[in-house]
């Protein structure tokens, strides 16, 4: 069979069109990563985010909505500072339309540069100190955290801009077990730099934290007070297979 130039041209054009089409589809259809993400690669699947994570220094939700005029200064300032943390909310929640929020700190954490609240013209973001920011609260998923399952990771505490004031360490024979206390500002740098696929840290709102705090701390105490045998069964029987399955996500981008 003869394969002349015309055929080659046809073939390459078809291939080009096909790849362009698949590329176009992938833009709308999201990528496989995001799909895998939705199938339980999130830390603490039982705990909701509980609302919207606002930029640092934001007023309480109701006042924030009343004051914010959707001018986009904070979003664009965040872009000029090269952090791109803030995003504009869509139409899914009509009351919230056009307002800035932190989409997913696993992709774009807040670096607490404090530029957005300085440049807010309406006062919807009030100027506060770094330490007083209350964007949210970071919770470590103890069942998939490396440090809680026999490893010495501590990536979260190294990434944390507040450092020693926020992290408590319970070092033992089951690893360097990190715990985040109430002073957390919720910037999400720890969630970004968690080496586990899908991250082992979830940022939730302060309101939601008040609700789930007791359960979460009870879980923590239960894990701490376990006997060696119970802990062995938990780590090797349940948690390590979980960690192994999540570790497969190498491309660490979670946005959809």
């Amino acid at each position, binding site marked *: 069979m003869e394969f002349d130039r015309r055929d080659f041209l046809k073939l390459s054009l078809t291939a080009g069109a096909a790849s362009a089409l698949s590329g176009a589809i992938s833009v709308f259809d999201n990528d496989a990563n995001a799909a895998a993400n939705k199938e339980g690669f999130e830390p603490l699947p039982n705990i909701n985010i509980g609302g919207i994570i606002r930029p640092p220094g934001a007023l309480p939700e109701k006042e924030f909505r009343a004051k914010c005029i959707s*001018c986009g200064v904070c979003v664009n300032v965040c872009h000029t500072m090269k952090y791109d943390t803030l*995003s504009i909310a869509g139409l899914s929640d009509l009351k919230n*339309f056009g307002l800035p929020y932190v989409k997913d700190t696993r992709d774009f954490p807040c670096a607490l540069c404090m530029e957005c609240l300085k440049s807010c013209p309406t006062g919807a973001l009030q100027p506060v100190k770094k330490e007083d920011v209350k964007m949210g609260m970071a919770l470590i998923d103890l069942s998939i955290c490396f440090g809680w399952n026999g490893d010495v990771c501590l990536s979260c505490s190294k990434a944390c801009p507040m450092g020693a004031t926020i992290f408590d360490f319970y070092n033992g024979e089951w690893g360097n077990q990190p715990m985040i206390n109430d002073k957390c500002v919720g910037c999400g740098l720890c969630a970004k730099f968690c080496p586990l696929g899908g991250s082992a840290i979830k940022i939730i709102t302060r309101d939601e934290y008040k609700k789930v705090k007791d359960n979460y701390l009870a879980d923590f105490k239960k894990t701490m007070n376990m006997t060696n045998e119970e802990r062995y069964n938990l780590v090797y029987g349940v948690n390590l297979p979980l960690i192994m399955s999540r570790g497969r996500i190498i491309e660490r981008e979670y946005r959809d």
Partner: protein
Amino acid sequence: MSTETNVNNTPDEEPTCSNLSKNNKKGLLNWLKGHKLSTLRRFVLIAVVVFFLLQFLRVKIAVGSLTGSLAIWFVNLLDVFAYLESIFASKDFGLIALLSALPILVVYLIFGRSFCGWVCPMDYIFHVADRIRKCKIFDFKISPNYGYIIPLVFLAVSFAVGIPVFTNYFSHLTNFFRSLTGAYFFFMDLPVAVDVIIFSFAVIGFLIILELIFPRMWCRLICPVGRVYGLFNKVSRLKLMITDNDLCKGCKACDRACYMGVKVSDYVKNGDKIIRDSNCIFCGRCIEACNTKSKIIKMNLSLK
């Protein structure tokens, strides 16, 4: 003399679609000579938009949009109507917001409603839309005073709902810059919701369609931002002056040139020396259109 012949509508010629759509092409240079103010106006507009586009290149000058922005360093600016809506919605005076709105207030106490003609990007978009439409007559019967209901309604709704409704959802300025930001973020693969882009472009598209059907109805009657700035026209330092009312031959070229529907010729006929009309946007088209040799309408800026 070239400028005189550019505008050749004789007084008795009725303005119809056919004789107005005739374009007097006499070369770009002659056009520029006769339209110095229009040229300067477009230059200002493009400069402002370019400054706002620089934020996408991560330059921290003029970040945000024309409703609210970080002008430079620590100077924040806030549109006056957005400020009003914000304080109505939050029932709080808002010191930070007031500090941001003050520079704009001072600017408009001096320049009046010139924002609409010189800075607002919709003015240029509408101008382009006007070119698509064949008939260029801006005939519009409803009095602009009815338009004052609209900002009041929006303020009342904002007060009731607790959200700055107009600025947040329908504002042409917010949506213009939001669509730019959204499109840029989308193509740079940054976090942005697609419906934000679609909504913002849809609002701009709706306004263009409105412009094609009812020319300048948005600017003359509806736009609450312009309405509020129109109030400043009564006290602004920048004003239109008439140097010599007797020289007017009553050709009404100024009325036809004005796309905001200001009856300049009436002011001239009544013997007024100063034109203080809430719909005047200081575009200077009446000055350029005037058929008298010495151009009896003048733009005057006195700080006294």
